[in-house]
Every structure is written in C-alpha cells, then in structure tokens.
C-alpha cells in the first residue's frame, strides 16, 4: 500500500512541481490590505444574499422532477425504465440504487456486507429484469447479478478473476467484462459459465466493453484509444488513433450508428463527451466546455438520450448535446430497457410523506430540502397573481442536511405560481449555494411577466441565474426554466451558446464585473462587463475586458446583440463600470 501511495504521489508531483514562494508574501500583504479597504467600504452595506432571476428558457432545463417522460419519443420495441446508479454511503461503502427516470423514488438494490465493500458498474439485462454489477472487497472483485427488485443476488465469477464492468449481450445470453489490468476483455454465459478471452492484456488495461446491437462486436478502450473487435477476438480495429487525445468509456447506441465516449484533449482540465461512428469517422461533439469534466455517457434504451456522469451527479442530454439537465446525485448511471408492454412507470409530483416536518416537503416538493429561504410577491404569470420562490439545499441520499452544500447534490429553486403556499415546479440548476436565495424578479423581456433572478454564489462576485416560467398554469403546463444563451453567444466572455446564462456583479482579486441596462422597461438591453485584471505585481499594464449585451426573448433564451473582447491599459476606466443602482429593475450590487 505504501508503495502504491508513493507511486501515485511521485506521478502527481512530477506533473506539478512546488511553486516558488518568492514574492508571495508581498502579494498576500497587498491582498490583505485590499480586503481591509473593501471591508471598511462595505461595512453595513453589503449583504451577501443571493437571488436568481427568471427569464424564459427555450431549452427547458429544470425538468428534474417533472412528472412523466413526455419529451421522450419511444422507439418501437423498447421504452426507458428505471435508472440504476451507485452512491457513496456515509459508512464508506458503495451501493447500487434505482430511481424513476424523473429522479423520484430512490431505493437501494444491493446491500453491501460489512467491511469495505464497493458495488459498482451496474448494467441492465436487455429484458430489464436483472442488473449485473461488480463487487470489490478484500477478497477481490467479482461480477454479480441481482433481480431488479433487489432479490435473488448471486455471484457469477471467482474473485481471483477480477471481473468487473459487466455488459450484457443484446440477446441477454452473454456478459462481457473487463478484468482490471489482468486478463483483458472476456465474455461468459449469463450464468457465469464458459468464460473465454476476447482481448488479452499485454501490459495494458483494456476496459469498458460495450456490445454492438447486432451482438457481433465489442467496443472498448485501451491506453487512451477506442477499439472495436469481433466477439471471437478477430478484426481488431483502432477507431481513434489519436496519440495526443485520451478517449475512453465507449457506449454503443441502440441503433448501432454511434458510439459515445469521453474525450480529454489538451490537459487544461477539460473532458468532454463526443460520439463517433463505429468505423471511426464522423466525430461529433455532444457536451463539454464549461460543463467539463464529463466522466462518461450511456444511452437510453430508446436512443433518444444520453445519461452523463458529471461532478458526482447524473445528467441527461440529447445526443446532439441539447436539453442538458441534471437529474440527481449519483454515479455510473444505467438506464433500464423496458420491452413494450412489460410495465409502465408513472412518476408523480405528489409530495413524499415524512414522519417529521421537512422544509422541502412543507412547501410541496417531492424531496426534502434544508435551509429553505424564500421570497414572496412574484408576478410570474402577468395576471396579478402573486407567488413565491424558495431556494434551499436538497437533502442528500444519506438523509443528513449538509453543513455546506456541494454542487454534487444540486441546489433547489422552487416556485409557487399561484401563491397557495405550495411549490408548482422546481429546478436544480443553481451552481453554488453558499448563500443562495431568490434575489429579485423583474420583467426582462418586456412581455408583462416577471422573470426570477436567483443568486447562487458568494465571496464578493455573486453569480445570478435567470429563470422564466413557461406554459400555462390553467392547463398545468407551467414550468420553471433557466434561461440559456442563444447562439452564437460570446464564448470569449464565457457565454457559450446553449449554456445557462449566468450574470455576475462585484469584484474580487483580479476580477471586476458590472451589469448595466439600457432601454428598460420598454425594450431593455442588459450589458454585462467582465474585467480580468492581470496578476498582481509587475507587468500589470493592461487588463482584458469583455462586454456582452443581451436581450431576453419572451419564452426563449437570452440573445447576444453585442459582443466585444479587448485589452485596455489599467489606468483607463472600465467601460460601464457602475457599482450601484438598479439595472433592468434589479439592484445586483446591493
């Protein structure tokens, strides 16, 4: 163990040598003095609060707990069922759970025995009746199977084989698996007999096998490349051949046309999801950029969605990257195939029951939520109806309110369209919640309804998300959606097309952000200025400034109508560098 620790330590320290502390003391002193000045200036004035705004979102985010799977277009023969995934238990075990596809009704499937036991790599059988998974403990690692209701668990392989990452063949008769870095990729019958090698290991680590839908081939990763091989071990092909790019975790689409995988390119911390054809051509980007790092992607049984693991949570997106939304906290998702006619899931928004009052449940949410803060008097519908908005920290699977929430659990925004004290819809798209809350509501698009502005972050540069209510309350279609940036955006300023719109106002070391507004309320244009100062010390003659102008479309995204990025001398004032007063009806600097 000590040797392994040393090896990992050596690898990492070779990458990043220690920093030179020369000049650090002077910079710390300068920062301390700046903080003193800021504190004096802000004394009694700056209240760290947060609010999130509302503006229309065309791309519909927030449907995390929405009833039904109305957006899913089922294929002819199979539908999407439950989602299996894994969670970290507080006692140090890893356990397999399932949930409805809308994120509700989590329940445990495995019950790892005492000791450090890790159940991982869940994989559904093609008929949706059984889950295969890998169990690691002091004896080694084995492939197990268990019925979808958690019963009838049995071990298929000997721990000495190190069998893991099981993948069912399309007809359910075989299971492929990797063996860590021992014996390569292997297959066996679904009852654990007939083990044979497909891809032997030769001082490398082939892994993550995935079947072609016709059952004749397997895709897998090895040494940062993607490969396809016949199930009999012949016809091995390298799909990627990219020595400077790392590719891994392939997942074959149900129609056989695409393979999704994770791709890390240039060592800047990015890790993205792409798809490629099974012949190694037609590379297509799915998601990444500011969403990076993205860890893996698996297909929905109907092929309409990808489940993506990102920052210890499960997300769902279309194969073209659109409709990217967070579902719930967890790892290693796998979507249950449901051959037509087997069963139907009927998610509900009915609040869960609890023996004790819970903040989230009390306002009608289907999940528990801690530290709820609220704001009243929001005219979402433009008809004089006054509702409320709340933010809070959803209680993780462990059931304990976190002292300080982490983005892994997501942060909740709930709204009451009617003012009856019950949440009508909610979203988990706040980025930070160190002091989050509903901030304000204003009519950013001039359509007579208010958008909700919610703050999600602290320190001295609060970030604001903008949410809009779409649909109609009368027919039950009203939804809370976070506004995204319309193409082409302003990537140089961090506004990628399709990304959530995040406004920011305030200043911190090296950063000054300003928000101003023109034409409000008749035809408002909101101007966001971001100023990136050079590091403190010599060579700070210039700063980089990005100016982005937005208009907000009714029921749609924020459209960039002006974008420029330039460098300017630091002795010149930043354009639009206001630090107070309302912008489009909202005081972002209060």
């Amino acid at each position, binding site marked *: 163990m000590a040797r392994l620790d040393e090896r990992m330590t050596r690898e*990492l320290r070779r990458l990043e040598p*220690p920093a030179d502390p020369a000049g650090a003391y002077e910079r710390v002193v300068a920062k301390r003095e*700046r903080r003193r000045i800021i504190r004096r200036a802000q004394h009694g004035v700056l209240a760290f609060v947060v609010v999130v705004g509302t503006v229309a979102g065309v791309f519909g985010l927030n449907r995390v707990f929405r009833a039904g799977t109305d957006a899913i277009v089922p294929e002819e023969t199979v539908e999407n069922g439950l989602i299996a995934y894994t969670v970290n238990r507080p006692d140090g075990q890893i356990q397999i759970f399932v949930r409805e596809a809308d994120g509700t009704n989590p329940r445990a499937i495995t019950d790892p025995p005492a000791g450090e036991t890790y159940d991982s790599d869940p994989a559904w059988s093609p008929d949706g009746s059984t889950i295969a998974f890998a169990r690691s403990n002091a004896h080694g690692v084995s492939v197990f199977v268990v019925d979808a209701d958690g019963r009838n668990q049995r071990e298929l392989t000997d721990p000495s084989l190190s069998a893991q990452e099981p993948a069912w063949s399309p007809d359910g008769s075989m299971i492929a698996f990797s063996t860590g870095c021992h014996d390569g990729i292997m297959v066996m019958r679904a009852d654990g007999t007939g083990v044979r090698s497909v891809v032997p290991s030769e001082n490398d680590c082939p892994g993550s096998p995935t079947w072609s839908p016709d059952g004749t081939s397997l895709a897998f990763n090895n040494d940062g490349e993607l490969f396809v091989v016949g199930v009999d071990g012949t016809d091995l092909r390298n799909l990627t051949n990219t020595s400077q790019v*790392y590719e891994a975790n392939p997942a074959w689409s149900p129609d056989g046309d695409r393979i999704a995988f994770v791709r890390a390119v240039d060592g800047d911390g990015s890790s993205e999801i792409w798809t490629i054809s099974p012949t190694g051509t037609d590379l297509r980007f799915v998601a990444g950029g500011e969403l990076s790092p993205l860890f893996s992607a698996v297909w929905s049984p109907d092929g309409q969605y990808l489940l993506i693991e990102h920052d210890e949570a499960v997300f769902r997106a279309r194969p073209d990257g659109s409709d990217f939304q967070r579902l719930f906290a967890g790892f290693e998702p796998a979507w249950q195939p449901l051959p037509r006619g087997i069963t139907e899931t009927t998610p509900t928004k009915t609040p869960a029951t609890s023996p004790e009052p819970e903040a989230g449940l009390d306002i009608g949410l289907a999940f528990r939520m801690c530290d709820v803060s609220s704001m009243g008097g929001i005219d979402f519908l433009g008809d004089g109806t006054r509702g409320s908005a709340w933010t809070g920290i959803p209680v993780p699977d462990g059931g304990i309110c976190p002292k300080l929430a982490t983005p892994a659990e997501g942060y909740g925004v709930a709204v009451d369209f009617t003012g009856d004290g019950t949440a009508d819809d909610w979203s988990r798209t706040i980025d930070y919640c160190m002091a989050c809350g509903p901030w304000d509501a204003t009519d950013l698009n001039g359509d007579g309804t208010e958008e909700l502005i919610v703050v999600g972050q602290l320190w001295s540069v609060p970030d604001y998300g903008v949410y809009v209510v779409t649909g109609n309350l009368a027919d039950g279609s009203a939804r809370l959606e976070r506004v995204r940036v319309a193409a082409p955006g302003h990537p140089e300023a961090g506004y990628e097309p399709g990304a959530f719109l995040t406004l920011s106002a305030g200043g911190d070391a090296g950063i000054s952000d300003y928000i101003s507004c023109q034409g409000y309320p008749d035809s408002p244009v909101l101007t966001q200025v971001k100023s990136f100062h050079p590091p403190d010390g010599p060579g700070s003659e210039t700063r980089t400034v990005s100016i982005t102008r937005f208009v907000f479309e009714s029921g749609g995204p924020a459209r960039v109508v002006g974008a420029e990025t330039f460098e300017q001398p630091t002795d010149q004032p930043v354009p639009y560098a206001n630090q107070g007063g309302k912008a489009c009806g909202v005081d972002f600097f209060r």
Partner: protein
Amino acid sequence: MELIDEVAIREFLHTVYPRLVGGLSLVAGSRAAAEDAVQEAVARAWERSERGEEIASLTAWVTTVSLNLARSRMRRVAAERRARSRLGSRERSPSHSPEDRVDVTRALATLPRRQREATVLRFYLGMDVKEVADVLGMSEGAAKTTLFRARRALSRALGDSDLEEANDRGEA
C-alpha cells in the same frame, strides 16, 4: 488556536505554500489561478485573525478556502484563458513538457471534481483519509469511497496493474 502574524505567514509561505499551490494547480488546471486562490486565502485568514476570529489550523483553513475559491472561479478562469488566448497573450503553464502531462493529466481531468480534489489532497499533499475528509467536508467513509473511485478510474486509465490490483482489494 494558531497565532497568525507576519512570522506565521512567512513560515506558511515558505513551508506549505509551494506544495499547496502545486496541488491546487492540478485541481484548477491553472498555476496562476492556484497561486491567486492560495494567496487570497492566506490574506483572508490573516485579515480575519486580525479581527479576532479564531483559526484553529492555518494550513487546514487555507487549504479549504483556497479549494473553495478555486471552485468558484473555475468558470471565470476558463473565460479569462479564452480571452487571453484570443488576444495572443502570454500566459503558459510552467515547466513540464506536454509528453509528461499527457496520461496522468488527462486521466485526472476526467475525474469528477471531488475525486480529483481527494486525489490531490491524498497523494500530492500527503494528507491522511481523515484530513481529506475534513478539508472536503465529508465523512471518512465518504472520503474512502471517493478515493476508491478515483484510484480505480486512474489505474484503469493509466494501465497500472499494481494500482488496479490494490484497488480491487479496496485499499484506498
């Protein structure tokens, strides 16, 4: 409670700062962002101490706060990097050649944030599991499972059979 004065700050910068910046660079993906976050955290600790706030351990406090700062600035740093790149600016990562960074850096980049942070705290900064748990605000059990996931992913990515074998046995 730790006395935080000029002597303590200078000692911290001499002994802890170099390695902490290195570790944070792996988390944040930028040496400049890591330096800025750690310096800012030290300044805040110093200023808070002057106002009478108690800080039990300067190292633990600065590690936690600088991680928080790095997280909250990740998106901003990315925007800055794009802006600088577009303008042909000079900022570059120091020292190592691209070849050195390829495997481990890219594998590390694919890890979820908490796993990446736990890996750096455990293996780069040499913290034990309890210290990792304290800094990341999680239970020791959660720290163990997080490290298990990280080590498994890294060993698979790097093709290290020794690491993989130990991971199979649950040695985190």
